[in-house]
């Protein structure tokens, strides 16, 4: 009987360990781990182009994660992207003239929203909108611009082609100050 008990305890321990490992993998190493964030407040920001920004992308100040992108939708009238940023309640002293930009982490990394703090004494509150925004850098446009510039420089001796203006540089400028 004692022997039978011991293997049953061993089996029980093994199954408990296996499920503990599964629970650990599922809750601590996956996107579920980001759901356990506590109270947060929502701030809106408009971008003319968000590039490959995805839901749950991080929001960072000075490279430190302070929240995540909780909603992305197109605004039907202005046809620009309305992005909702959920910021941890813990960080409640972000000036309301801060600028939001869509950046890429590394050359091939994911995109995230960076907030550059301004100098206003008032802090962002729930429902506020970040007015200063900078859209995602489109690598293709930069390359396109570069190629057009190069082409013109190479053919400076014989100007057979009309001068091309750089295509649509709206996306790399700080956009609409409403």
């Amino acid at each position: 009987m004692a022997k039978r008990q011991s293997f049953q305890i061993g089996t029980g321990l093994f199954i408990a360990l296996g499920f503990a490992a599964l629970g650990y993998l599922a809750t601590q190493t996956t996107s579920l781990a980001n759901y356990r964030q506590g109270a947060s407040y929502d701030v809106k920001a408009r971008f003319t182009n968000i590039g490959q920004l995805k839901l749950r992308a991080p929001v960072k100040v000075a490279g430190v994660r302070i929240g995540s992108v909780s909603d992305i939708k197109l605004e039907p009238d202005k046809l620009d992207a309305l992005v909702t940023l959920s910021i941890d309640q813990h960080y409640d002293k972000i000036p309301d003239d801060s600028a939001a930009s869509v950046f890429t982490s590394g050359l091939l990394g994911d995109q995230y929203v960076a907030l550059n703090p301004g100098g206003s004494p008032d802090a962002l509150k729930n429902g506020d909108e970040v007015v200063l925004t900078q859209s995602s850098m489109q690598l293709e446009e930069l390359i396109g611009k570069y190629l057009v510039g190069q082409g013109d420089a190479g053919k400076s001796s014989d100007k057979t082609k009309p001068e091309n203006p750089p295509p649509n540089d709206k996306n790399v400028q700080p956009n609409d100050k409403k």
Partner: protein
Amino acid sequence: MSVASRAFLPFTAGLAQLGACGIFLLQTLRAVPRSLRYFRETVRQVFFVGAMSLVIIMTCGLFVGMVLGLQLYHTLSIFGGTAALGTVVALSLYRELGPVVTALLFAGRAGTSITAEIGLMRATDQLDAMEMMAVDPLAYVVAPRFLAGIIAMPLLACVFNALGILGAHLVGVSWLGLDNGTFWSNMTANVDVWDDVVNGVWKSTAFGAVCTLIATFQGYTSPPTSEGVAYATTRTVVFSSIATLAIDFIMTAFLM
């Protein structure tokens, strides 16, 4: 026997084996409800194929994780992407290496012992003796081991994955000086529960079923000689490994 039919003998023998294995699977599945009467036997088998394999699984998981950490850190540093180390290690472990390496180790550690045990039961007429006593050997011997394999394999794969992550963390963060927060936050940002973790669990459940099916089938049909048991044990490892890798490819293609 004509020359032509002799030339095709390996193929027909292989087909016959495959068919016998399929029939054996159906018989085992039919015996599963009856084997619930011997529930304690199933628990004992979970202990033998699962808990007793923990040491090898945990050691190998730790080392696989450490090697992954080292190799990927080196490769990713060429592209300046060492921040993605946690993500890459976690995804490759959960989706591929965890289930597959666990299944290969399981075939070597538990599959062989199942084959040898059942083969010796066959060789010493214990299976026939059970039938004489109106105990169905499929329900008492085969089905509990089959169930135990299905239960134990996903749990072993999860333990393997957890130790692998720990090993990669050890190498990447403690040794190579990657930032701890970067390691975890990149992982949690890119690894999904259903797409990655549960995907791997399905895979390892299928591997558990296939590996124990092959092990029990080889033992059950092994010739009742010492040489026959030896060959059956070898075939268990060979066929289990091939079947695991082949099914892995098919399941990856479907589950992607």
